[in-house]
């Protein structure tokens, strides 16, 4: 009798401008890349699904964004996987708080959860690999997490999404004949700015190095000026394929979410 006992975990799906070239190792396919929040182990799937009605509410509407800022080899003593460390650009506290809420909820439902301190990371490869090659090849990469999934491990680094909770994307690329354009979203001007940075970095990942965190942005013009400073820093250092973020468009609001059609001169 199939009791539907499955290897389950909660994780955030990850989207990034991955690129095609990687050092040696058994790569996790892009569609399977994720950031684990809580590992449940072998559990009854139907039991868990029944309980999900009381699952903690998602603390944010828009997908959190961040960057992979360094390479890790885990576990430290006898590494079996290559992983990329996560550095959040926004919602860091909200993600950490949500993770705590998830763990609390799981325990309340009778599930044992790993007690070790949470190290936010994404496994990128397993198997035989050269740490030196992975270190040398590493460049910071932006990402966002479009969904929270209850995953089932299928083995061989493949996973199935059993139950999903989707976030709104932080930006969407749109058709523009001559240049580059995105719809960018944010709940505050500061978040709109961060998501605009992410959009630019998705187009040209090298821009991650030139990003600076800004505490507050006072205006639309302020957002554009700061974005252009990022492009300018890259241009002085190594050349930048983007000429400038234009002042085109306006910030509009719809149901508490700000939106801007950002056009970048290429």
């Amino acid at each position, binding site marked *: 009798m199939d009791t539907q006992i499955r290897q389950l975990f909660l994780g955030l799906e990850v989207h990034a401008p991955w690129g095609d070239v990687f050092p040696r190792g058994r790569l996790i396919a892009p569609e399977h890349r994720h950031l684990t929040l809580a590992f449940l182990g072998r559990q009854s799937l139907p039991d868990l699904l029944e309980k999900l009605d009381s699952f903690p509410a998602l603390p944010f509407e828009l997908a959190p964004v961040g960057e992979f800022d360094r390479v890790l080899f885990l576990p430290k003593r006898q590494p079996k996987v290559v992983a990329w460390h996560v550095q959040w650009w926004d919602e860091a506290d909200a993600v950490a708080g949500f993770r705590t809420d998830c763990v609390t909820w799981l325990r309340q439902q009778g599930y044992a959860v790993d007690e070790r301190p949470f190290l936010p990371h994404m496994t990128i490869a397993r198997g035989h690999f050269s740490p030196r090659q992975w270190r040398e090849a590493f460049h910071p990469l932006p990402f966002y997490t479009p969904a929270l999934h209850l995953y089932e491990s299928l083995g061989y680094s493949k996973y199935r999404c059993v139950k999903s909770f989707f976030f709104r994307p932080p930006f969407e690329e749109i058709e523009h004949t001559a*240049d580059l354009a995105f719809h960018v979203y944010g709940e505050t001007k500061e978040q709109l700015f961060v998501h605009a940075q992410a959009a630019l970095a998705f187009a040209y990942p090298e821009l991650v190095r030139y990003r600076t965190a800004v505490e507050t942005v006072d205006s639309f013009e302020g957002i554009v000026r700061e974005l252009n400073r990022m492009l300018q820093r890259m241009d002085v250092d*190594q050349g930048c*394929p983007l000429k400038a973020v234009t002042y085109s468009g306006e910030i509009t609001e719809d149901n508490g979410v700000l939106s801007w059609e950002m056009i970048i001169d290429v």
Partner: protein
Amino acid sequence: MYNLRKVGPALYELPREGDMRVPGLVVITEELMGEIDFERPLSQVRNVAHLPGIVGHSIAMPDIHWGYGFPIGGVAATDLETGVISPGGVGYDINCGVRLAVVPEPFHTLGPKKRKKLIDEIFRRVPSGVGVGHKGKHALTDADYQNIAEKGARWAIENGHGFAADLDATESYGVLPGAEYTTTSEHARERGRDQLGTVGSGNHFVEIGEVADLLSPQIAEAWGIEKGETYVLIHSGSRGFGHQVCQDTLDLFLQRGFAEGLPDRQLVAAPIPSSEGQQYLQAMATAANYAFCNRQMILHAVREAFHEVLRVSPERVRLIYDVCHNIAKVEEHLGRRLCVHRKGATRALGAGHEELASQYRDTGQPVLVPGDMRRASYLMVGLGNPQTFCSSCHGAGRARSRIKSAKAWRGVDLFEQMAGEGVIVRASSSRTVAEEMPDAYKDVDVVVEAVEEAGLAKRVARLKPHMVIKG
């Protein structure tokens, strides 16, 4: 469908409505109208018509496509006393432009090995793209900037990059008057310091090919162009220096509230006589003169490559013309002094114009129209059409977005693809090549037909690309 009224061959008027100060005038054929998303650029034509002091029409060329503020392919003239100057009507890449040279060697004599050697030598000598390719050989000092501002392309020639005769074959003789380098920020100068003599990225290029057809044989003869000759076409601008000049000015103009009343912030514009307006004109001229030097130096590097590989002496690589297609110039039209903004549009003076050097005064000004890297580019002659303030198109114009283009060519070896079509491509980035594939552009044949039909310029020669360097 678009509320356009046909007023002449390939000429449509967009009637005044709302707060438009003048009507729009669109140079286009029905065929081209059907090919692109026309509504967005048309709305930009309407917006430009709101500029204070605009004279005549808000004009759009047949290579029109969606830009920001101004449409790409937009022309607007404003009165010098009562009108405004809009940095968005020039663009970030101040004096982005094109130059054409011919080499008196039949292209068909360049066999495959020589072509490969030549393109590799040019790729080696002319920095392009980002990374290593973004740095030129000269790190500019402030004294250099001062000299470039004052002399334009002549500075490059005085430093060993070309010949005095090149200046007669350059728009405005390679220098815009009134430049003042101190009106540019230290930040702008820092950005441009290492970039002089580099092509840049995106749609910038160096192209080598064959003069395939002579469509106005008499004018071609007057210009010393022969069928079958080899040509060199260069597309580049003012690099990070110009971009920053534009950015600094936009920031300043917005702070000063000059966007008030305009339908698009990117159109922000200062009264021409104001200190801000005058300062921008001086800074823009400085950046324009940097761009003239840039193309001068790139051509000379190409000349040196021809010498190295084919033993063609540099003097024999003869500059035909150099045009600006992102610029604002003070010109006289209809008895008035106007500031003519050309954003992705080219000046096209007709025969007899006093501004032209003697070799072009009888014929009219050469107009350069790059197409795409497979089909064709064109050499045309200006007809001095007053309706468009002596302006013509600047290229084929994009028909497809960069995302669509990159997606369409995903997984294909683009260099092999183009080689199979008879074009050798060298590029620092295959992504750029994917975005710049020929099918991303309108058919330049159709665009120049519209230009000719509207009486803006006439075809002189059709140029067939065979070797292209992309940034």
